[in-house]
């Protein structure tokens, strides 16, 4: 490996030109099914398939096999009146955040280091850099820069350790910025995959058996999201007999990184397309089929969890009753429905609340704000303290100024960091009451907190004028010093997310181009803390899913070189590709969160690909099992059908 540091990027480019690299071309394999064949070029001599019995003894490109099982699928299929089977494929797609990766670092001669970088977690940046460079965590201070989108793709380091090594050698600050081409070539897309699905059902729609086999590209090193892909793909349904098998497969591609609800959009494209086929074969309404089999509170999933406080059937009910579902369709138009599931996670977070001398409030958390979470933090603290949200200023602390906080990802921030902030605000509120009691010289039990003021209660009610937060803050020095609280949590009990989307398309019979005419995304959000930002998450996720469905893919040439490493040829949806996206929020509160919040950011990307595919099936009468459903593929499919 080589890296060049220079005083300008032009000089660095010129220096790079002078490095001569000789490549020896080895046998390679790009496709996931090819990589699994006997005789395929083996990427790693020391990679043995995990999760198989008996233990693997020869090296393989299959890094891992995972399996989930409930009941007896053979017996289930024997009971079925109707069986559908399908084989689906998806391509690698990139998160395509608009801000490329960048960092500025300094490594001092005493080893003290400072990193400014855009990431989904500066504690993660610190940990990776310390590990890679053999440093102590406390010698590295990682600053959270504003982040221009991540969607999972900024949960690992690319530039920071290299910049640190260069800074160490030169004794100068080092800045590194990726070009867009670098971003496409060298940072993680998510897996492409193949999914074989089989469903069996009774005439009344009851599913008697379901199987899925998933094979996901991991890139050159293990680590595809095949496991969550397996766990999510049938989680919307109460199934008695189900087996899901997944393979994590290495091939000569970039190592994948997380992308919004990792794995679920890939597997759910297949299972929700298969559900549509099943509805067609049964002559049943697709929502009615889903209602018949929907997971409810008490449903046990194939991966072991028993659901509580879920809102899936409510999304189906809302979809059925939405005017969109019964609106008339024109020629070449079709309507599709699909659902999706994502776990949502909790985990470690820290939040601090500081009451300032003038009665304003500062909040510090360790969670980079990727979609407006700072505003939600401020709103939760303001609610607890009973003060206007304008009085609360949220900031993100660096690794030296706030307690450890896990990544922004997994739809965890409003839930877990929100829990830490809420608890810290509650402690501050209790402290404020205590201070007021001291000033009034009454017991703390005799003080209530209402609308941002301490009010005497019980026997003392009316005995003193209410004392606002600002007045208590002013006297803090006399009542025990600064009024602050910092709370760290390892939050458990994130409520899972369910969504049902309705999509209308029109397919141009001449060009094969699909226009999305109307889109409605219905989701159980627990409780929306900041409703317009929640809508924004739903709309943004749906749009990424529509891009994944219709346009986006990594295109390789026969030599395994990426052909479309730029926004011109890797086409993400633009404004003129999209209709308005109506976000419908269903609120089934999460009892494990102080305000009932559930994660909302990820599940909206899960249903769109099947929703679009099912709509295209409705429009042209052809099942499109391969993503993306781009114009040439649709044209070819329509030509083949016409004979």
């Amino acid at each position, binding site marked *: 490996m080589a890296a060049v540091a220079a005083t300008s990027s*032009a000089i660095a480019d010129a220096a790079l030109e002078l490095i001569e690299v000789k490549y020896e071309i080895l046998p390679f394999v790009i496709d996931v099914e090819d990589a699994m064949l006997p005789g395929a070029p083996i990427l790693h001599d020391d990679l043995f398939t995990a999760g198989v019995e008996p233990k693997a003894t020869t090296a393989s490109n299959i890094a891992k096999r995972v399996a989930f099982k409930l009941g007896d699928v053979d017996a289930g299929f024997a009971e079925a009146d109707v069986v559908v089977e399908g084989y689906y494929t998806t391509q690698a797609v990139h*998160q*395509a*955040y*608009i*801000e*490329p990766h960048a960092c500025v670092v300094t490594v001092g001669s005493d080893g003290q280091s400072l990193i400014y970088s855009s990431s989904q977690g500066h504690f993660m940046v610190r940990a990776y850099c310390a590990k890679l460079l053999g440093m102590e965590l406390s010698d590295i201070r990682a600053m959270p820069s*504003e*982040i*221009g*989108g991540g*969607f999972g793709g900024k949960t690992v380091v690319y530039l920071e350790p290299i910049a640190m090594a260069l800074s160490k050698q030169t004794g100068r600050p080092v800045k590194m910025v990726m*070009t*867009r081409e670098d971003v496409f070539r060298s940072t993680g897309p998510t897996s492409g995959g193949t999914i074989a699905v089989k469903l069996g059902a009774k005439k009344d729609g009851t599913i008697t058996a379901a199987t899925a086999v998933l094979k996901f590209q991991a890139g050159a090193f293990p680590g595809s999201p095949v496991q969550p892909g397996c766990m999510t793909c049938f989680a919307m349904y109460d199934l008695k007999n189900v087996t899901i098998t997944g393979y994590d497969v290495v091939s000569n591609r970039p190592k994948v990184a997380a992308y919004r609800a990792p794995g679920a959009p890939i597997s759910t494209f297949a299972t929700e397309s298969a559900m549509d086929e099943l509805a067609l074969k049964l002559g049943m309404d697709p929502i009615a089929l889903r209602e018949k089999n929907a997971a409810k509170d008490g449903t046990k999933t194939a991966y072991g969890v028993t659901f509580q406080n879920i809102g899936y059937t409510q999304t189906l009910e809302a979809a059925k009753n939405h005017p969109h579902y019964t609106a008339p369709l024109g020629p070449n138009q079709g309507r599709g429905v699909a659902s999706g599931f994502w776990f949502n996670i909790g985990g470690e977070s820290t939040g601090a609340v500081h009451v300032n001398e003038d009665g304003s409030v500062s909040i510090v958390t360790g969670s980079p704000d*990727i*979609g*407006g979470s700072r505003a939600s933090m401020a709103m939760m603290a303001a609610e607890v303290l009973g003060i206007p949200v304008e009085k609360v200023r949220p900031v993100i602390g660096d690794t030296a100024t706030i307690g450890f906080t896990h990544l922004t990802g997994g739809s965890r921030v409003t839930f877990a960091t929100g829990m830490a902030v809420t608890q810290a605000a509650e402690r501050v509120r209790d402290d404020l009451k205590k201070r007021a009691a001291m000033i009034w010289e009454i017991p703390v039990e005799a003080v209530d907190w209402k609308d941002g003021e301490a009010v005497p209660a019980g026997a003392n009610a009316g005995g003193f004028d209410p004392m606002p937060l600002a007045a208590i803050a002013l006297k803090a020095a006399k009542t025990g010093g600064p009024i602050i609280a910092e709370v760290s949590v390892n939050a458990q009990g994130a409520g899972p997310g369910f969504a049902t989307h309705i999509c209308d398309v029109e397919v141009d019979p001449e060009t094969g181009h699909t226009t999305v005419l109307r889109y409605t995304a219905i989701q159980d959000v627990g409780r929306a803390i900041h409703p*317009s*930002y929640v*809508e*924004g*998450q739903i*709309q*943004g*996720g*749906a*749009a*990424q899913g529509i891009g994944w469905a219709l346009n986006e893919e990594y295109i390789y040439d026969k030599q395994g070189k990426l052909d479309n490493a*730029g*926004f*011109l040829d890797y086409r*993400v*949806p*633009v*404004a*003129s*590709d*999209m209709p*308005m*996206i109506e976000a419908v929020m269903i609120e089934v509160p999460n009892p494990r969160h102080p305000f009932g919040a559930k994660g909302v950011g990820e599940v909206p990307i899960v249903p769109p690909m099947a929703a679009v595919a099912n709509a295209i099936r409705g429009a042209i009468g052809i099942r499109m099992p391969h993503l993306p459903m781009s114009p040439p593929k649709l044209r070819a499919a329509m030509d083949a059908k016409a004979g």
Partner: protein
Amino acid sequence: MSKQHVTTTINGEPAEFLAEPFMSLLDALRDEMHLTGSKEGCGSGDCGACSIIVDGRLVCSCLMLAVEAEGHEIITIEGVANGDELHPVQRKFLEHAALQCGYCTPGLIVATKALLDRHPNPTETEARYWLAGNLCRCTGYDKIIRAVMDAAAEMRGVTA
């Protein structure tokens, strides 16, 4: 390579800077003039994050050489507000929560201003096609388009 002296007008003020002949106007704005509102998402004219207005025309500043700015009138995102008073487009972006990460936002606001300066009454479809060169990966465009249509209505003096 010797640097060239460039004299231009940025946001209504005379401005001058030194630029290498190959330097993009975007880099000159950000690194020489410290106007970091314009962003680079691609450097190849495909994302619109670097949008500026040159002599009334919407331009990708990553595709223009800094030396080409000589004698022209440039408006960047920093020049859209009137002092402390936000431009209606900026206000409507805030009101409609038309941003998440905000990386695309300066370019989209500049592009919207360029649209409304010329076409105060666009249809939704026209607005969508005008803004098709400005990628946003976060929002799905819904709230952006609502903000644009609302700003247009307000600027025409109708309440939407």
